[in-house]
Each structure stands twice: as structure tokens, then as C-alpha cells.
């Protein structure tokens, strides 16, 4: 059985030179947390709302040996706002997760399950031309399996 049997969520692939501000606005207006990113006519990766939030958090708390907590710093309102304003000039290509693999339209269910569990985010489904045809989430997959189990 392949993922072709599932009803995928529709997906709008955004260009890699879209600003982070636009990406954030699309996510909020469409009530979604992930968007596939395309470049050169094909799939590039996925941007997660967490990646957008990471861009607001001071870099001092990023990566290994970064500050473990920022309780002492209060809300740093000015700093956070200045980071959000900088989104207008930052491209989504800077934060896109290129590790998240696309799934082929005829990917077996078990493989899709493994990838969803490994990357812990919805994954893009692509056709033979690497055009994004939809997004597959753990929720859709689990719903399908529960339905099958009840039969």
C-alpha cells in the first residue's frame, strides 16, 4: 500500500526568496505551521513555524553552548521587535530545513511512517518532476490507519 491512497493536505510551494515576514503572514492567515519551499522549479525543503520563532530568539541562546535559559533577561521587548522587523529583509532560504526529505507519490506507507516519525513534521509529497503535490502529516496517516483497523 502506498500514500497514493491517502488524502493529502493541499500545499502552496513558496519561492526560496520569499521574505520571512511574508512566510509568517501566510502561516498565520492559513492557520498552518509548515510550508514547502521550492527553488529552480523543484522542491527545496520545508519551513516550520519553529524556524521562524528561532529567528526571533537571540542567537546567544542558539546551538551548542548557547545560554540554557533566558529568564534573567526579562522579555527584551525592543530586541524581539527589532528581530521581527528584520524578517522583512531575511529570505526563507536562510532558515529552510533542507534535511526534510520529500516523499514520492508512490512511497509505501511504512516508509512514509518512518520518515514522518524521524523528522517529526509533515513532509511534502512530490511527483516525478519534483513538483509538490501536497503535504502528508502524521495526523492524516494515523487517521487512515485507524479507519483501516476499524474495518
Amino acid at each position, binding site marked *: 500500500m502506498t500514500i497514493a491512497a491517502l488524502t493529502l493536505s493541499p500545499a502552496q510551494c513558496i519561492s526560496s526568496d520569499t521574505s520571512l515576514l511574508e512566510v509568517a503572514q501566510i502561516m498565520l492567515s492559513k492557520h498552518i505551521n509548515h510550508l514547502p519551499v521550492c527553488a529552480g522549479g523543484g522542491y527545496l525543503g520545508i519551513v516550520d513555524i519553529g524556524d521562524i520563532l528561532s529567528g526571533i530568539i537571540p*542567537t*546567544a541562546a542558539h546551538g551548542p553552548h548557547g545560554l540554557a535559559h533566558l529568564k534573567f533577561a526579562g522579555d527584551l521587548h525592543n530586541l524581539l521587535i527589532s528581530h521581527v522587523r528584520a524578517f522583512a529583509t531575511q529570505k526563507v532560504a536562510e532558515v529552510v530545513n533542507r534535511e526534510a526529505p520529500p516523499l514520492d507519490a508512490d512511497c509505501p506507507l511504512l516508509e512514509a511512517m518512518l520518515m514522518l516519525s524521524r523528522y517529526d513534521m509533515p513532509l511534502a509529497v512530490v511527483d516525478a518532476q519534483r513538483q509538490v503535490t501536497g503535504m502528508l502529516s502524521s495526523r492524516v496517516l494515523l487517521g487512515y490507519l485507524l479507519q483501516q483497523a476499524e474495518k
Partner: protein
Amino acid sequence: MHGSGSQVSAVLLGMSPLLVSLVIFVLTYAVIVTEKINRSIVALIGAGVMVLSGVLTQAEAFSGVDFNTIGLLTGMMIIVAITQKCGVFQYVAIWSAKKVEAKPWPLLVMLSVVTALFSAFLDNVTTVLLIVPVALLITDALKLSPYPYLFSIIFAANIGGTATLIGDPPNIMIGSAANLTFNDFLFNLAPIVAVIFALTLIPLYLKWGKSMHATEDDRAQIMAFNEHEAITDWRLLKQSLTVIVLVILGFVLAHPLKLEPATIAMFGAAVLLLLRALGKDGETQSHETHKTFAEVEWITIFFFIGLFIVVSGIEKAGALTWLANQIIQVTGGDHAATAMVILWVSAVLSAVVDNIPFVATMIPVIQNMGSVFGPEQLNTLWWSLALGACLGGNGTLVGASANLVVAGFAERAGHPIRFLPFMLMAFPLMVMSIAVSTVYLYLRYLMP
């Protein structure tokens, strides 16, 4: 029986131990410089080949390892690994930033002073790992370029580490080999280190300090920081500070107490581990102790062990006695000239290659000069080596591990530190620090 092993292998190879040991030494150091293979692996392979080729027996190899250095390093690494968890270092950094009302130039000076002080008592890499994230957060909030702050933190770490026996690995090695105490380092190096630190700030002010500006609004954000919130474990803070104070006191009193630094550091580490374990069940104790031991930089420890063996191989073969004689010939046996050669060569080489293997090699060379110079004169050579090797690390981005760690942070923060621009500013400053050291050594120890 053990002693005959080397002779048998040397006969089997049919080559002179001097030639074999020199080939192993040069190859080991060459591969270390390429950084293609982890340096600890290269040093251990070099050490193994020294024994397998018959230059050293296993017993000679083990006796070549300076376990005083190894014990002191390991003990201090354990103490720091536990202490840093309580947030005390971030507390001090934030407190100091607030003390100067987050004004940009005084802030740079304050963070540099804090870095230099921590670095005098902690490993330089650990110091920058603790200070740089706070510096990045503050400069981010003040909308200032972090570059001048990161540059000055690198300099402060390397300069501060020069001041004490435990501040930088070369000093630990020199202190152990030359029987120099914590107080010896403090009295002989700390005064000039303070002068060099102050002088280094002047060019930094002229280059960056004059044009730094932050708005009242942004500074108010820093003044609103609550440094007490940086402390994550008050009990651990009290335990750690008590042990650190007692360990430093132990270093100061080591001579009258007839104790070696390794004993003091390792015992302090054991006491701190015990205090952490008290009142916890067996499983938690094992888990926490395991985690603490995992934070010891075993790569550095095994690198030292391998190097000590490699160097003892060429030492046994007579290469270092020959090198010592050559240096004395070049300087005509003149004490002042020898001190200056050691100081400047150490500085320039340490700016481009790891200072630890260099110092490991130079220690037996200087010990061999004991046949020409008296104990007091020999001490001057040790101070030349310490000043050159530690301060030389400031010359380029690859001159010290702390430099590369800061560069890594800067890259992630979107303000990469490039090799050439860094060197164009850093190398002249390093040369200035060595020039000041030259004057100091001459006036204090060499002037007829």
C-alpha cells in the same frame, strides 16, 4: 628485563634510535599541524610507534608522562564542569555589565576584565564558552556589532590565562616540569600580564571604543536583567565556590604544605563530586558522576599523554640535548640572548601552531640548558617560554583553541571572524605584548 626491549627492537630495525625517534617526532607533529586527524589520535599513534620501534620501553614511556600535569588538568576540568552548571559565571558577567550601566566602551572593558580574571583560574576555552553567549546577548540588545567584544574577549582570555599556574596548559606543563609554584607564576607573570592587558585596551579604544553608541532605551533593557535569575542552583553555587576557594588556597600554600598541584586539584574535584552526591540515591549518583566525567576533555588529556611519550622518545635519543646545545651556540651562551630567542620564537610559532606540542618539546630543551645556566637564570627562561607560548596564541585566529571557539560563536551569530582581518589587527597587538614582555624580562631579570 623491561629495559632490554628497546635495544632488541632498535637492533631489529637496524637504525639509530636518534634517527628513528626524530622521524616519528617530525611525522607526528606534521600530521598534528595538518589537522586532518584528531590530534589526540595522532599523538597516541606517535607514542605507540615510539615504543613499538624500540626507542622507548613501555616503562620508559609511562615514566615520560607528567602525571602532575595530567592530574591538575583533569581535576580542574571536573571542578569547572560541575561549577558552570550553577550559572555563577553568567551572574558575574551580567552583574559587571550592569555595574557600568551597559555603556558600550566600559562594557567592553568590564567583560574583558571578567574574562581575564576567569581565564586566570579556569581553562581559556571554558571561560569563553561561558562569557561569549552573554556578550552576544548584550550586544544584540544594544544593537552593537559583537565583533569588538569578541575580539577583546579572545585577547583577554589568552592574556589572563598567562598570569597563573592553572590559567593555560603551557603554564601547567612548565610549572610541573620546573617545580614552579602557583605563587611563583603569580609573582613573576601576573604583574606584567596586568600591564599588557591594560595596554591592549588602548588600541581597541582607538579602533572601536570611540565610535560605540547605544540608546538609553536599549541600555535600559540590560539594566532590567536580573542576574539572580542566572543562578540555577544556589546549593551548588555555595558548594562550588567553597571548593574553588579552598583549591586556590591550596595552590597558594602548596609549597609549605609540600603538596603537588595535581593532588590539590584532584582532591578538590573529589570533594565537589562527593558534595554533589550526598543525599542522592545510587542511580542518580552514578548518572551525575558519569555526566560530569563525560565533560572532561579527554581529547586534550590523551593528547598530552601521547605528546609526553613522543617527546620523551626524542629526549632519550639525545635530540633535545643537541637542540639545547645548538641554541646555546647560536646565542653564544649569553643568558639574555637565550631568553629573548625563546620568548620571540615561542610567540611567533604559537601564533601559527598549537602551543602545547611546542612547549612539550621546549621543556626538556630548557632543562638541558641547566648545565650552562644556574637555577635563577633557568627560571627566566621558563618565564620567557610561558609568556611567548601563551601570548603568542593571540597572533592569529588559529593560535589558540579559545580563538576558534569564539569564531564558531561569531559565525552562528551572523558576524563571522575572518582569518586575515583578525590577523591584521591581532598580530601587531601580539607583537606589542611580546615587546612589552621583552622590556619586562630585561628590566627584572636580565639587566646586569
